[in-house]
């Protein structure tokens, strides 16, 4: 059988007219002697009604059937591509269903993986990562007077004998405390100013220790890295929004777990949870006159809901002792002002 085709040889640009001669599972063109396997033909895009084929390993080689391929020949030739090889084989709708299922599984696995992986990362590795990211915070940590001893006493009181926890005070006027990778907790001087009693500080500290114990920092780090990898393939904007949304919804649940942890620690240490509840109420704006703007930093990273203060308040029962003696509390509050060597708070985050 012969069929008329137009032809580019991929070497020159001149279009030739020829006949396609079928010989079993091979073919040749009437203007040449070369014979090729029909299986080596590759479907190309249909152009203006002409069905076009290329040839494997011959870039630019084309034959075109003006007005389409006769049915009896079409059966011998490879099928046209549409969506891609795999999708064409199974059809669009079955492929869509399978992909959607796989995507759902992938999302679920992906959302659960950071928590599992974070707990599998050895604390020593996390500590090294922390060193890489933040180091020893340079000369900004405060060590004035009896402050360090008072701080150590507070940590000892609520979390006895845990070598993995390293609490520092940094000379910045920010009402906040953060947990960094490797069990490092940083209390900002602004928080010491804003706290009315050592018990309030103990609650906040307990919360941060909860983050360390739950490996929340590592989990959040892995999640953020994973999200940027996964969403990198999508359009930049969509990725950014989704990213923020997922990251924040995660940190809420981690926050309430850290709160539960802090409540347990306060109870074990017989420190009253009521001052901490009061502290959250103050930040929440119920007594908004003192330093609402200052408190914004803590609110931004630790969303304060009325439920949080309530959880602390409701856990109160029995008798309590103050977390620190008045002398220790005075020394702790003076840890930065009495430190002559500390860098002045000119640094901005």
């Amino acid at each position, binding site marked *: 059988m012969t069929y008329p085709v137009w032809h580019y040889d991929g070497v020159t*640009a001149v279009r030739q007219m020829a006949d396609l001669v079928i010989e079993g599972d091979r073919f040749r063109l009437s203007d040449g002697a070369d014979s090729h396997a029909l299986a080596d033909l590759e479907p190309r895009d249909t152009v203006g009604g002409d069905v076009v084929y290329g040839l494997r390993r011959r870039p630019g080689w084309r034959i075109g059937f003006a007005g389409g391929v006769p049915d009896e020949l079409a059966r011998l030739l490879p099928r046209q591509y549409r969506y891609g090889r795999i999708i064409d084989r199974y059809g669009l709708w079955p492929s869509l269903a399978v*992909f959607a299922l796989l995507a759902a599984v992938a999302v679920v696995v992906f959302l659960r993986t950071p928590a599992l992986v974070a707990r599998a990362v050895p604390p020593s590795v996390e500590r090294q990562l922390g060193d890489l990211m933040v180091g020893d*915070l340079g000369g900004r940590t405060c060590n004035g007077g009896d402050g360090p001893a008072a701080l150590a006493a507070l940590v000892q009181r609520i979390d006895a004998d845990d070598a993995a926890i390293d609490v520092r005070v940094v000379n910045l006027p920010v009402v906040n405390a953060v947990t960094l990778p490797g069990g490092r907790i940083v209390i900002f001087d602004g928080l010491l100013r804003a706290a009315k009693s050592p018990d309030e500080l103990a609650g906040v500290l307990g919360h941060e220790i909860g983050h360390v114990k739950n490996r929340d920092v590592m989990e959040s780090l892995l999640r953020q890295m994973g999200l940027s990898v996964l969403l*990198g393939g999508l359009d930049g904007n969509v990725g950014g929004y989704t990213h923020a949304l997922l990251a924040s919804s995660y940190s809420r649940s981690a926050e309430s777990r850290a709160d539960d942890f802090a409540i347990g620690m306060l109870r074990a240490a017989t420190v009253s949870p009521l001052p901490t509840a009061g502290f959250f109420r103050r930040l929440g704006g119920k007594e908004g006159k003192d330093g609402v703007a200052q408190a914004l930093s803590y609110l931004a990273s630790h969303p304060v809901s009325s439920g949080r203060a309530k959880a602390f308040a409701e856990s109160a029962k029995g008798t309590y002792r103050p977390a620190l003696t008045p002398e220790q509390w005075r020394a702790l509050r003076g840890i930065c002002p009495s430190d002559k060597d500390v860098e002045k708070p000119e640094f901005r985050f």
Partner: protein
Amino acid sequence: MNKQPDNSGAFAFHGDWRQFAPIAFTNLLLTIVTLGLYSFWARTRVRRYLWSETRFIDDRLEWTGTGLELFIGYLLAFVLFVIPFGVLNLVLQGVLLRGHPGAALAIFITVYLLLMYLVGIAIFRALRYRLSRTFWHGIRGGSDDQGLAYGWQYLWRTIAGTLALGLLIPWSMTSLWNERWNKMSFGPLRFEAAATAGSLTLRFLLFYLVPILILVLGVVMGVMFGATGFRGGAGLPPPGGMIAFLFVFVLLFYGVLGVIALFFYSAYFREVIGTLRLGGLEFEFTARTMDWVKFVLGTVALVVFTFGIGYIFVAYRNWAFFIRHLKAYGSVDLLDLTQSTTREPGQGEGLLDAFDIGAF
């Protein structure tokens, strides 16, 4: 065997948005259910349609790139670029927190320069990739250059153009255009680009001065507005009026600036494409500022009034606009037009994807 463009123009786009719609919607659907993975294949399908509906003289263009090579290009760029820069970012943060701002600044500048160098290479290689996958009469384009030299050219010309108070930006744009297109070819024919910045300078100066003028005008009007408020005895201008004034001012600022940017870009594309040659062919880009304004407003309307769904038609619109205004004159001798001997790049425009920059 001389082929000459007839009166209807050398380039014509025969696409129909009703034919394109099934491609666009299935692409969107597949991209969603594959969590974005299909986007490389989606882009390939779009290009295959757009190219195959574009006629040059007597035959259609053909796009032969594949989704797989775009995907591999993206993975490569990710491993070679995104991961190292992510790690470097962590280190930078560490250095800064340890209290060595000098060292951090040095690292930052080095990284920034390296980044610009890579952006240059990415632009060059994306152009090379696109030409190498574009066939006409069974013949493709390409370049023998790897684009490493272009990376340096891009780096220093961009810096030099910006340093002179930004006044040399038209020069850096046109000279870089020449730099990359002069290294490109189609079949055995080299592109020759001879764009100059001279005709663009005036328009660029306008772009440069108008924001300052508007700002001065705004301050003067704001002061007058405030003054009348005082005279009225209210003490403060009514806040509603003030907000409305600011709103109109901002809208005016960006509107005017946008139009002037298009005023500059329309001249830029007329210059760079108008001075491009390929063998016996000369090109022309006919879009004037008004065409660009209508085009941009149309695209904005398309996206806004469809609540974003119209975005999937933007590539189609861009291509149709580009081809509608692209003209060619002269002739091609098909007997001389033989297959390109340039090396075919193995993967797609991954690096450019990583930087999220579009088009050429």
